[in-house]
């Protein structure tokens, strides 16, 4: 599916026009329609799981997991709770922007859900440019919205064109009051340079890490720690910006980093390779994987599984993995050392997952750390952010309201 500029412009006009009707509906009605859409989408995505697997490169069980965990957050109560949070701090009615254009990336197919549902909830119509490699899910979402409500369905549409098509891009953004871009820093910079004064919400390159305190590794907790981290690593085959690439592990006299890594590999990532199998490894990523694994072996220790690898090495220098379930364990003396290491990542750090015992300390320390704006959450939940989780250091409704 590829649209030309006239089609993009026509869709933009009709979505913009539908905004007035959308805004005339009540927030409660919109929450109800969106929850109904999520239920429909859950069923439709299940029916199209093979097509989604092919389009995303994820295995069918992973597609099903991703769909379920994402759409489970689109409930009437959670949306109304979010709306209450948004309203807090203002006694005026919400003043949504007239239209949002969204440019999606292809790495995490469900990332579109929060980026589309929340604007619609707040009364903002949305025109979506699907990733060139993945148009199936956005189209299913659009169809689900239409089936829930004609008002809602008219306020969202999907277009597709090649990245860098300047004419289509201009048609996509010229009616928008705000543009939201998911993708590499290069993509974000290229779009920013072309849209002039239109406000841009950038979701550029990002990486995430995890921290595990010593108590998370004791015999009482290690099983849960391994299970949670394995899910965070395997979800979306580690391709998302919320996927942990590095796990800082507090050294403990009772559990060495090497012992922990071995158990993570054998008891966590290995079995998860069967329950949530990795998708097909693109050979180009495989080339990077072979280089990364070799360096990991030269500079530390590498544990290889069938479809994963765990590197144990000093925290510096950071060697970013090619994703696809290649993760680094870096032993540290404690939170201080882990946070010092995170400073080097700067604003690219999107999320820090921690064991529950360390959560409040890490959260507080990150809040005091000006170069870092990472979101903190318990391990096991890194890839399933709640509806109201912040994104890139901003509330999820950032730039969608004028007041």
């Amino acid at each position, binding site marked *: 599916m590829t649209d030309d500029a006239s089609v993009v412009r026509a869709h933009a006009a009709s979505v913009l026009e539908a905004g007035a009707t959308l805004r005339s509906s009540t927030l409660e009605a919109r929450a109800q329609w969106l929850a109904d859409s999520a239920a429909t989408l859950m069923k439709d995505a299940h029916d199209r799981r093979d097509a989604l697997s092919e389009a995303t490169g994820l295995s069918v069980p992973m597609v099903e997991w991703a769909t379920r965990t994402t759409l489970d957050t689109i409930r009437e109560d959670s949306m109304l709770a979010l709306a209450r949070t948004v309203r807090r701090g203002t006694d005026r009615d919400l003043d949504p922007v007239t239209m949002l254009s969204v440019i999606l990336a292809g790495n995490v197919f469900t990332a579109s859900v929060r980026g589309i549902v929340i604007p619609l909830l707040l009364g903002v119509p949305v025109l979506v440019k699907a990733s060139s490699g993945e148009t199936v899910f956005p189209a299913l979402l659009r169809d689900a919205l239409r089936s829930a409500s004609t008002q809602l369905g008219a306020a969202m549409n999907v277009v597709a064109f090649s990245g860098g098509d300047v004419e289509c891009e201009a048609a996509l953004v010229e009616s928008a009051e705000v543009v939201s871009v998911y993708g590499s820093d290069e993509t974000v910079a290229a779009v920013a340079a072309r849209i002039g004064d239109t406000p841009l919400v950038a979701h550029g390159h990002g990486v995430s890490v995890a921290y595990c305190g010593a108590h998370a590794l004791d015999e009482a907790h290690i099983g849960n720690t391994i299970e949670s981290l394995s899910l965070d690593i395997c979800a979306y085959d580690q391709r998302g910006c919320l996927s942990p690439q590095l796990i800082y592990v507090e050294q403990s006299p009772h559990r060495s980093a090497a012992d922990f890594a071995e158990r993570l590999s054998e008891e966590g990532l290995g079995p998860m390779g069967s329950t949530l199998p990795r998708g097909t*490894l693109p*050979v*180009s*990523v*495989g*080339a*990077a*994987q*072979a*280089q*990364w*694994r*070799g*360096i990991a*072996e*030269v*500079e530390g220790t*590498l544990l290889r599984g*069938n*479809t994963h690898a765990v590197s144990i090495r000093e925290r510096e220098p950071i060697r970013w993995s*090619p994703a696809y379930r290649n993760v680094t364990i870096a032993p540290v003396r404690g939170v201080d050392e882990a946070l010092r290491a995170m400073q080097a990542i700067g604003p690219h750090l999107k999320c820090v997952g921690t064991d529950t015992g360390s959560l409040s300390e890490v959260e507080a320390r990150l809040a005091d750390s000006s170069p870092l704006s990472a979101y903190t959450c318990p391990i096991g939940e890194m890839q399933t952010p709640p509806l109201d989780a912040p994104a890139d250091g901003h509330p999820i409704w950032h730039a969608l309201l004028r007041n």
Partner: protein
Amino acid sequence: MTTRGELKARIEGLITGFEAGQQVDAAARDELIEDLATWQAKRIPEYGRLQRHGAWPPALPTDVFRFRRIAAHPKEDDLRVFRSSGTTSSERSVHAYGDLDLYDVAARAAARYMLFPDVEKMVLVILAPHEHEAPDSSLEYMLARFAEWFGTQCTWVWRDGALDLGLLTEHLHQAEASEEAVAVLGTSFAFVHAEDGLGARRFELAPGSRVMQTGGYKGRSREVNPEVLLASISARFGVGAPRIINEFGATELSSQMYETTLREDIDGPMGPRRLWVPPWVRATPVDPDTLQPVHGETVGILRIDDAANLDSVCCIQTADLARRLDDGIVVLGRAPGASPRGCSLAADQALGAQ
């Protein structure tokens, strides 16, 4: 215990035997690579850390050459150090040689067999810097040796960091007038710049002329589809496509591979364009997960076991994608995301391209 001298003699014997027309026994080569890898693993700690998977010794990723000195000899014994192109030290692979004998033997034997199989010596025109201008480039070193081994006369048309189009034109016109065959050798980027700079000037080089181009595009300058470049070079220099061949080399390697069409155009029969692998080298597309050879013509990542790499590591895992074709291989290029580097980039940087 195997000594370095014994290994060197075995490698040299294999290559010179091939040069003398002897059949190289693949089993003997494999055994040599095995012994060599064992010797290297004991002397190079980085290599000794790699675990073996499958029947062959482990292969060291090329990226390790960017971060670590990979040499079986101490630094003070370095005779020559080659570096890949790049702007920062972490982007440049470093390959230190304490002894260039095997490099020379391998380079001469491969070029003699694939690039100059029909002539002792001929006129060379080189679209690359002289080795004095780029002393740490293995390509420039090799081209300088070619001038000694295969050149009746040799002109470097790259001077003071720029491609001298006037000098190139002058020498090609001379070759046309004398009807003497010429070998034009250079980086792919240099040929692109020649193409861009020569305008309407075209040449009709004498029969027997040939072109060797090397290096990829590195994403650092105007990128030209290899087939388009091949057609452009053919039209520009008046040399038939079979006589225009690619050389595949790398800083981390001591041996080179050449496309087959020139040799087959001379000797026949003509097969598909593919890279010839010297018989002292194993070039194998492998599966990225298992690192084991892929089946048939499946695309894999290219592992090269180069017996001429005596004082570093002979088993190398590149980031290039490749597949087998007949008795050779086809390199499909560097995987997106892998660090761009290579001989061709030095020339491009010298031209100020961004």
